[in-house]
């Protein structure tokens, strides 16, 4: 007998069954799995669109992310340059090859040196967008794919995220619905699969492992800066 059969056998004995669940139960369990019924979702996100964006901003700021507003994509490069200057950071950036970011006039900002793709060890600043953000806890949601190497979210010391305000959703459940829809969309290139990695990012990296003192920048970014684009 394989270890698999032994473990399942032991489990079934302990559950008081001789074999797998009966067909009726199996159907019910399968229906539960594909039904995606939501459990309790906190009421704090029962807000209009503007309310959701301000809740997102409040929650993200509370966990030490910083937020800047611009009115449209044309202002993004200047806002990124301004942030890097104000924090005394280098102007070389590694940027996700993401179509959202293509909409910004990067070449007009001559001071920024931009490379598109995955980061290398020496990269100090990354710029990505986020396909969704969860107002409930100020959380960014990012999906791996050709247009978004996941290491951009973790390797450089500073992560700048360009977030069109319309992408702020209420809850994690909204994100699950959207990745499922994307997987099933023949134009998405996902071939029915979820992204390999879905990162929920809530503030910059931190550790409390030395005397429970809160320290930012443990392994991931020390700084998480969100540029909120108020209109798409």
């Amino acid at each position, binding site marked *: 007998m*394989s*270890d698999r059969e032994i*473990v*399942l056998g*032991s*489990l*079934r004995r*302990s*559950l*008081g069954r001789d074999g797998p*669940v009966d067909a009726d*139960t199996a159907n019910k*369990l399968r229906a*539960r*799995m594909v039904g*995606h*019924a*939501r*459990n*309790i979702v*906190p009421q*704090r996100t029962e807000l209009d669109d503007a309310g959701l964006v301000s809740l997102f901003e409040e929650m993200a700021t509370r*966990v030490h992310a910083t937020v800047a507003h611009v009115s449209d994509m044309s202002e993004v490069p200047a806002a990124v340059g301004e942030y890097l200057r104000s924090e005394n950071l280098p102007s070389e950036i590694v940027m996700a090859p993401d179509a959202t970011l293509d909409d910004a006039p990067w070449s007009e900002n001559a001071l920024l040196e931009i490379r598109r793709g*995955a980061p290398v*060890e020496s990269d100090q600043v990354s710029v990505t967008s986020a396909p969704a953000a969860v107002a409930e*806890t*100020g959380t960014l949601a990012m999906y*791996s*794919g*050709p247009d978004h190497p*996941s*290491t951009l*979210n*973790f390797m450089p010391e500073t992560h700048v995220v360009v977030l069109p305000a319309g992408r702020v959703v209420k809850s*994690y*459940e909204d994100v699950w619905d959207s990745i499922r829809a994307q997987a099933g969309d023949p134009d998405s290139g996902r071939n029915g*699969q*979820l*992204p*390999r*990695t*879905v*990162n*929920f*990012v*809530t*503030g910059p*990296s931190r*550790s*409390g*492992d*030395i*005397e*429970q*003192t809160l320290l930012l*920048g*443990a*392994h*991931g*970014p020390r700084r998480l800066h969100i540029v909120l684009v108020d209109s798409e």
Partner: protein
Amino acid sequence: MNVHPTSRNFKNNAKEQLANEDLQAALNKARGHFVDGRSTAAGNLPEFEDLRDQAREIKNHTIENLDFYLEAYEEKVVENGGHVHWARTAEDARRIVLEICRSVDAKAVNKGKSMIGEECEINEMLEANGIRPVETDLGEYIIQLRGEKPSHIIAPAVHLTKDQVEQSFRENHTELDPDRILEEPPTLLNEARTILRKKYFEAEVGITGANLLIAETGSSIIVTNEGNGDLSQLIPKVHIVLASLEKMVPTLEDASTILRVLARSATGQEFSSYTTLSTGPKREGDPDGPEQYHVILLDNGRTDMIGTEFQDMLRCIRCGACMNHCPVYQSVGGHAYGWVYPGPMGSVLTPGLLGVDEAGHLPNASSFCGRCEEVCPVRIPLPKMMRNWREQEFEKHLSPGAARVGLGLWAFMARRPKLYQLATGLQMRLLARMGRARGRLSSVPLAKGWTKYRELPAPEGRTFQSRWKSGERPQ
């Protein structure tokens, strides 16, 4: 190679730890932090208590149908290009990890924090086979340098002061300037970050644990604050997930409910910095991510707990709230418990996994104050289960002679109320006289062990029963 618990020595371990000044200083600092954090986070979410009920129901439902969900999960992992390995014992898990490491000729393995990794002693096995394990979680890294075990399931180095961390860094990072200033936590963190950053690129394999497995999608979830678990799984060629069977939930919606109570109960955060859903290896066209994705599903005694009075223990989501709120843990620290899982959850789980003969002292290390159950996000009746273990210990004649004689004597007296009242009345008067001067007793015959660390308030002279009998009533 077998597990090396010292749970049998709980009493001596505890005695040593009570006298350990560094430990007591470190515990004093951590205490308020976790307790206040949880209470604030719970207070900020009106639905928190209802979410706890739902989290409990989700875990119960999953355990009752665990064979179904495990098979559904396995099918999805394979569909996404991953591999599932079933491990009956810790030894099986070690063998599977080694086989995978050897298949890619691994020299170094990066590890995100994993309690299953600790339970299976993966590091010791890797070292014995010439493979270098690198713990990347800051707390785990510190204790790896010191050759210690974690003392807390989410804060592995909570037993150490910053001076001890500094000392370990100076002893180990000998390539750095010995005159460097290294006193404050930020400089310590920066040093660890710089040193570990290089190591991420040297490993062929990354091992993480899993906070949750999702049957619907074949995914695993890790919840971290540092980002080390993410770098550990994204950079090496191979990602191995070590998970015990009961980490399963049916859907992403169910996972969301568990996540809403997890961080709040653990660190008092609304949500941890990083919650990562991993499904299979990297896809065609992905610029990064692992080429292989393996999940090791560990039983190691858990299926035997199902169907027993200890089944509810498998709901545990490893938040650590029970130990953060436990007066015993807060006095003796995690190492005294002698194995991987300390505090109230360890006092129930360890006898379940190792046997009550190995770990029978642990369920006795409780004042039954009940705070663990009060704060448990999945409402595990920990005190009740500790009582169940005590009963089993007594029935198996494993409890110490003095305790058995004492209990026998008490039972004899309790069945003879007149004699009982006479004896306790005499005792009260005697103790009251002894403690008359200060109202407290610093030494009591037959209770020297108890009074060594605290004083006994002297009784006021009469027993509850005699006061009740003479008509006294609460105001």
